[in-house]
């Protein structure tokens, strides 16, 4: 406990960030990780040594080798290639799902936060109820109703994100609404939608983007979970989730089949979490600097 109560300004910094200087370790590590995730996903067709669905029964369930850097699966398909294409799928699902949540939740939150009252209460009550379902359960139920496909997974995960983004957008909007330029705009008769789009949106966008970064990581885990349960991407399309599901049957002979995709999920989600934290840290720094 020594040094824990030494001064009033020990408050905000996190351990991964050395005190002093503008050095933001989470931002750098997370940023590098996320850029790697995005680049390898987008360049999957160029980087993958094999087609992700190329079957080679003679070399099935292999370990690490020069020909197959991360081994092969039960059909002799190259695990590294499937990992890269699976990342591509995860990234696309995550980005579209988060965009759905960001747009839907942002809109609800801005409208609700514009003015306290019955509209605000009703909207947020609906969001609370949506929020009270466990996310995975809600996704499972929606997939059962919509039918299993990647597109439906995006929609289901996107809907799950709406209440969280709505709450956040509402609290940001409310803090903007007390500003003088809003009072000025309202008193000069600027219409409601124009105030939201021209005055509120630019002010809440940076904060929303930080939330969106963290949400990408969560969307990746949700997509992987749905695919693991057989409710998301359908085989033979590779997804980190269905790769782990398939690999569970061969864990003693080819542990890489589950270890490799599990590591990929860990790295992708860890990177987005770190990046989100780094961005938050930078925002806090800027705020505390602004107060001086």
């Amino acid at each position, binding site marked *: *406990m020594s*040094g*824990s*109560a030494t*001064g*009033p*300004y*020990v*408050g*905000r910094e*996190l*351990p*991964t960030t050395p*005190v002093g200087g503008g050095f933001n370790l989470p931002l750098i590590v997370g940023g590098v990780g996320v850029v790697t995730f995005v680049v390898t996903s987008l360049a999957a067709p160029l980087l993958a040594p094999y087609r992700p669905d190329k079957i080679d029964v003679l070399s099935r369930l292999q370990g690490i080798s020069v020909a197959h850097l991360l081994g092969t699966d039960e059909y002799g398909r190259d695990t590294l290639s499937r990992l890269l294409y699976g990342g591509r799928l995860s990234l696309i699902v995550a980005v579209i799902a988060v965009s759905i949540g960001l747009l839907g939740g942002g809109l609800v939150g801005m409208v609700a936060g514009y003015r306290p009252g019955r509209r605000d209460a009703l909207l947020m009550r609906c969001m*609370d*109820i949506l929020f*009270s*379902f*466990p*996310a*995975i*359960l809600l996704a*499972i*139920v*929606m*997939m*059962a*109703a919509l039918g299993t496909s990647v597109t439906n997974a995006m929609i289901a995960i996107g809907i799950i994100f709406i209440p969280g983004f709505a709450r956040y957008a509402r609290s940001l909007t409310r803090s903007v609404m007390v500003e003088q330029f809003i009072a000025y705009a309202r008193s000069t008769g600027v219409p409601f939608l124009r105030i939201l789009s021209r005055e509120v949106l630019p002010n809440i966008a940076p904060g929303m983007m930080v939330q969106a970064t963290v949400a990408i*990581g969560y969307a990746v*885990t949700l997509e*992987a*979970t749905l695919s*693991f*349960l057989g*409710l998301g991407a359908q085989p033979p399309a590779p997804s980190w*989730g269905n790769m*782990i599901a398939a*690999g*569970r049957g061969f*864990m*003693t002979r080819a*542990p890489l089949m*589950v*270890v490799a*995709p*599990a590591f990929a*999920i*860990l790295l992708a*989600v*860890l990177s987005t*979490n*770190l990046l989100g934290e780094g961005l938050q840290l930078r925002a806090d720094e800027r705020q505390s600097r602004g107060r001086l």
Partner: protein
Amino acid sequence: MTHYLIKRAIGVVLSLLVASVLLFATLNVLPGKASTAALGLNPTPAATAAFNKRYGLDRPLVTQYFSWIGGVLHGNFGKSYQTEISISGEIARRLPVTLELTLGGTLVALLIALPLAFVATMSRGTIVDLVATAVSLIGLSLPAFATATALVLVFSLRLRWLPPGGYVAPSVDLGTNLKLMFLPALSLGLVSGGLLMRIFRTGIVDALGREYVLVSRSRGASRGRVLWWHAVRVASIPFITVGAMEVGAIFGGAVVIEQIFQLPGIGSLVLEGIETRDYRVLQSGALVITAFVMIANLFVDMIAAFIDPRLRVPSAQ
């Protein structure tokens, strides 16, 4: 406090009713699925009509909803379309499994979060803090199903310390039960434990940086007293708020974990309902899980209101 409690309890009941409407609507707007699943892809119109009549599926949706929810309020969830088994009996049989798993998961989460957060704040800025933070970050970044698979690989298949799945009731053999539940509870609790550790750590560090801590220390309060009275109490509010949300995550994660470890709980009932397209089983199981999440949330909110009196006044929120 009583007033606050009653208000919250009414809120939970209303939310559950809305949730039941949502579940029913989501799963029943597309008609004809139940009969297709039960009778095969090309049933004769007569067979379909007989099936729908038998289960009351020929009635308007609103009537179907009220007959379902009316039964639920009397503890009768109806019968499975596929197996004709009473869903209420099935839920009663499976509920203890899910509750044991989720309680175990919560316990693991707390046992990870609280000690790690304390160790991390005590030795802030050192390698111990860094390791504790890294462990929590890794825990919260790996989804429960991947953690579970990794744990089975290491502890069941490689080291052969623990069984990879299955279930024995604690009343039959407590030792075997605990052995079987250890890995599921661990994989379920790791994710929430990692997140809660970070929340608690940030809360304590944040509180210790406040001026009232400095003032209190300068007036001669001991470090322990300051830590307990000003830091832990203050930090426990965000901890409890996030903890309430994590209750949902733990119950949701249980659905996946039960599937991996072949535990016969409500979660696996829900997934079986999907597999057999038995939507009545699916919507009933999902409603029960949601009900438990909401009740657990209410309980957590009560603890928060007990610690922080400001939360009992609605305007202060």
